[in-house]
């Protein structure tokens, strides 16, 4: 429990500078509660001093006062709801921003360890849970937490003996509320889990409906769904049962308290130590005691979800960014383009995936990394982009160790083209501008034209202003790659890292990409993870990476001339040309000999 408290108290730092508002609102809440319960004091005065004494003038005055007090209460509630919303949403916004800023500063290591869905849920549904608790729960919480003691105090002011009666009723009511809170929290959690399971089942079958139908799996899926749907129903029925018991119980306790006041009050009345007005007022005040109990029980569930959400959010906030600006880091001056890896070793976990690798790229030079998947090519590229720092050895650019420079100043001079490029929502032009938001329309159009992107997007509605849907669906892999190349070209980086696409690209688009690459590579240092021989031939130097070591290096033509790892790779991987020759010569295709390692 204390753990949860630390979670939610963490939110209090977003109140800095707003404490005056907070104090003001607590005062307003107190006035509001006083007006609500104090109004009944005036009803007593109306009965005892007006009605009982037959004094119509006093009655009029008291009624006017009563209306005035309630008008004050009304105004207080209005201020309270607005003010709490401003405070609550201020907290939510601060939290969401901090969380997001922190997330974007975490290294790729974090993102590869956590699933994307999990991380996104922290920024969205978890913060929403806190927002709900603050915007719906907070006004109820604040007014009722103040109302309960205020009402009891007023009851004691009215008549302390009747106040004691109330104290007898209150403990069972509190016990009942507590019981209900506990039970319903568990039940609500169960309900949430069950409906989540139902939703997951529906989502999975809808997303995979083609396969469900193609393989005649409808009946099996219906059976699974029926089971989950039944469980969800049972869980809801149980939760409803709890609610159905709790609220009538509170009503029953209210009736019992009325009876108790009647019995005790009538005795005092006959003794002449109590007025009829006090008795009547006490009956209504007691009803007012039960109202907060009901409403607080409603809020309790929300608070629990919020606390649970905060625990998860805290786990993200506590994750340390392991790549960042060191103290004393200097801005990277304009890069001329020498890249050096000096005896670099690196491990994601325990075991090294790179073993003392050294690479030198001269300004404007181009090296190609080739080798089988898992050999360490991508890791090398990521070290140059400083997504990670090496375990031993160093990565330096123009002779400056990357660990000593400001990350932002370095990366802004860097361009990256990924194998499966990610496109952001917005237009294609927005995506080109991603790395250089200030680029003019003219520059964007010119860049697109330079690599033939303009003709390719002409088939799309709106051309360059075509809206890209989530993740770039609707565009082919080749088109996305081309957009990503244009993006890098527009950014005009000094160093370029390129992971060549392996996936299916139809030939005409592929030709466009080849030409775009020529354009992109001109005049900058580049590191290419190459999959095609055609690309490898562009490089000044080819490095064959196997199991975290460079096993062969040299110009492509030289390497092809000798029997070694590169020639073996080229033999099996120089895919399209060879495959078609085989397919062409002896169809139907023979089973090719199993290629090397």
């Amino acid at each position: 429990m204390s753990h949860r408290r630390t979670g939610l108290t963490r939110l209090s730092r977003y109140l800095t500078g707003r404490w005056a508002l907070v104090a003001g609102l607590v005062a307003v809440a107190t006035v509001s509660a006083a007006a609500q319960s104090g109004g009944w004091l005036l009803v007593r005065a109306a009965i005892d001093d007006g009605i009982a004494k037959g004094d119509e003038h006093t009655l009029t005055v008291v009624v006017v006062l009563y209306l005035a007090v309630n008008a004050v209460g009304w105004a207080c509630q209005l201020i309270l709801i607005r003010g709490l919303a401003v405070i609550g949403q201020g907290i939510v916004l601060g939290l969401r921003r901090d969380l997001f800023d922190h997330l974007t500063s975490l290294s790729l290591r974090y993102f590869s360890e956590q699933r994307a869905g999990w991380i996104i849920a922290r920024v969205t549904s978890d913060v929403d849970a806190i927002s709900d608790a603050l915007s719906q729960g907070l006004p109820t919480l604040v007014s009722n937490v103040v109302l309960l003691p205020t009402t009891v105090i007023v009851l004691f002011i009215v008549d302390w003996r009747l106040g004691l009666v109330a104290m007898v009723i209150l403990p069972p009511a509190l016990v009942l509320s507590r019981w209900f809170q506990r039970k319903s929290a568990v039940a609500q959690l169960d309900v949430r889990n069950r409906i989540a399971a139902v939703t997951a089942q529906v989502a999975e079958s809808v997303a995979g409906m083609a396969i469900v139908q193609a393989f005649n799996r409808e009946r099996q899926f219906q059976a699974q769904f029926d089971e989950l749907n039944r469980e969800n129903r049972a869980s809801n029925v149980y939760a409803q049962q709890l609610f159905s018991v709790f609220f009538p119980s509170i009503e029953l306790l209210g009736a019992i308290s009325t009876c108790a006041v009647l019995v005790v009050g009538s005795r005092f009345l006959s003794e002449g130590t109590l007025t009829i007005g006090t008795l009547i007022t006490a009956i209504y005040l007691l009803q007012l005691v039960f109202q907060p109990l009901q409403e607080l029980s409603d809020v309790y569930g929300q608070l629990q979800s919020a606390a649970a959400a905060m625990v998860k959010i805290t786990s993200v906030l506590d994750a340390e960014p392991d790549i960042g600006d060191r103290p004393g880091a200097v801005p990277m001056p304009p890069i001329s383009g020498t890249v050096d890896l000096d005896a670099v070793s690196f491990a994601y976990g325990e075991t090294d995936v790179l073993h003392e690798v050294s690479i030198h790229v001269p300004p404007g030079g181009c090296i190609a990394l080739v080798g089988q998947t898992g050999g360490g090519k991508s890791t090398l590229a990521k070290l140059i982009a400083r997504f990670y720092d090496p375990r031993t050895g160093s990565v330096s650019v123009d002779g400056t160790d990357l660990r000593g420079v400001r990350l932002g100043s370095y990366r802004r001079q860097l361009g990256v083209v990924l194998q499966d490029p990610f496109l952001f929502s917005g237009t294609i032009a927005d995506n080109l501008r991603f790395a250089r938001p200030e680029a003019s329309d003219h520059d964007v159009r010119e860049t697109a034209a330079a690599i033939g992107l303009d003709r390719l997007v002409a088939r799309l509605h709106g051309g360059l202003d075509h809206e890209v849907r989530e993740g770039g669906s609707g565009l082919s892999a080749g088109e996305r790659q081309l957009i990503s190349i244009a993006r890098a070209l527009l950014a005009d980086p000094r160093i370029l890292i390129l992971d060549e696409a392996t996936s299916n690209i139809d030939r005409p688009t592929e030709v466009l990409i080849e030409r775009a690459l020529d354009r992109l590579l001109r005049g900058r240092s580049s590191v290419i993870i190459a999959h095609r021989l055609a690309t490898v031939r562009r490089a000044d130097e080819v490095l064959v990476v196997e199991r975290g070591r460079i096993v062969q290096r040299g110009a492509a033509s030289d390497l092809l001339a000798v029997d070694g790892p590169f020639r073996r790779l080229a033999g099996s991987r120089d895919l399209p040309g060879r495959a078609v020759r085989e397919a062409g010569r002896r169809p139907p295709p023979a089973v090719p000999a199993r290629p090397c390692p």
Partner: protein
Amino acid sequence: MTNPFDPDDYPLRPTVRRLSHLWWGERRLVVLGLVCALAYTTLTLTVSIVLQRAIDNAIVPNDVGKLWPYVLAILGLALARFWINFTRRYATARIGVRLEARLREMLYEGYLGFPRAFYDLHPTGQVVSRATNDLFPIRYFIGWGVVQGFQSAMMIIGGVIVLALVNPRLTLYSAVATPLIGFVAWRFAHLVMPISRRVQAAKGDVTEAADEAVVGIEMVQAFGREDDVRERFGAKAASVRNIVVQQAGVEAKHLPALFYLPTLSIAAVVFFGGRDVIDGNLTIGQFVLFNTILLQLTWPLEALGWILNLAQRALASAGRTFAWLELVQRLPEPENPRPLPAGPLSVAFERVQFAYPGEEEVLTGVDLALSPGEIVAVCGGTGAGKSTLLNLLPRFYDPTAGRVLLGGVDLRDVPLAEVRANVAVITQRPILFSITLRENLIAGRPDAPWDEVEAMCEAAGVADFVPDLPTGYDTLIGERGVNLSGGQRQRVALARALIAGTRVIVLDDPLSAVDTHTEHDLVGRLRPVLEGRTVIVAAQRLSTLALADRAAVLDDGRVVEDGRPADLLEQRAVFAGLFGDEIGVA
């Protein structure tokens, strides 16, 4: 004409009729709930009257001895009311929960039978929320609103009758605020709905922004654009704050009013009633009765506003649900089904035309025949109609003109389940389910012998990576389990189709995410296991093409070239344009 796969909402009257029909299906609970609501109203009013009598007959005359019968009566009535209230709430809540579950079951059953054309038009999120979140208003309305509305109406009518019998003039005075309360409640519900929808939309934007940044984090960090992304996200988050604060503004205007308007009535009763008491026209007990009943009427009045609003939302949701259930056109089953012949099946497309609803024709007249056991590749540029053609074979769609024949029989004359039992499919994006690898593999044929499963896994290249999985074939796949790479997923989908043991296999670009080296290897292993099956495969790379005996080239929705790949290359026409200059690269 309305789209048969995206029908308009059901009109109001039939919606109400269908919903009432479902509601009345739970009539035992419904009647129980209504009877309890009536009893509850009667008891609550009676308790107030007994309290009035107790004050007038025992407390004011200071006769303590007379008080006990009244107190006991109140306790007895309150106890009975407790049980009745509990029964009413529980019974009606159950109606709602059961109805919700029933509707969801009906929708899900519908989903399983809806054709592809339906799913082309509706994003997954929409289809899912229609069967989950969208049903909640129906549950609340049926499970709470209907009976609560009945009870509220009873309470208001009963309360007014009781008060009018005691003092009609005072009843009129005290009723000043009541229409206002109902109005404010209704207006609030009316105003807050569109705002809360905007809140939801704004939250959707935040989710999208977060999603993009997280999924595209490598891009963001690589170009050092963290600040841009943060700013964009911050703006979206701020807009959520602004709308929520705006919503609070609407709440601030209405909710306190709901709370404080009843005090106007109390003031009226204290003022006018107080003078009546002084004048001897009203007893103290009756004075209390007025206040008590007025307080008891507050909630029913507020509730009516909510219920009206809830009814609107529930009926809108039900209208959409019923429209899908009744009006979405399914693939027609044959009236006189014909069986498929035994042995390897031939496949033929005869003058096949196809257009997606409301769009231009994709296939303009495809003629293509596959003899039993033949493997044919379908090639063509992006948008040539390869996937569309392939999707006709498992009868995901019916052609708009022409015929698709399986073993010489028109697909539309064969029961749908039989078509699907004989045609295995590998979709472009592989679809696996969040179950174990083993269950995924045998999804097409749960009783497949294990040695056959292993053999197919060997051929499809699944066996290559199974040893790397934490618990081999029993590894859980997907969100809660292991995330396989795109290439691995494709290989599992391939194995699943092979294990299904069908006579026809449709492969839509089956190895696009597998690296070319592995593909080369797989193609060789696949040839023997495809022996005797009729296979149609869409291909973009020559390495995939190596699988086929023959290639057909689609262009502009028709077959323009057909023959052996080597021959087609020599023709130096469309096919050569697609693949030809790949030779020159090496």
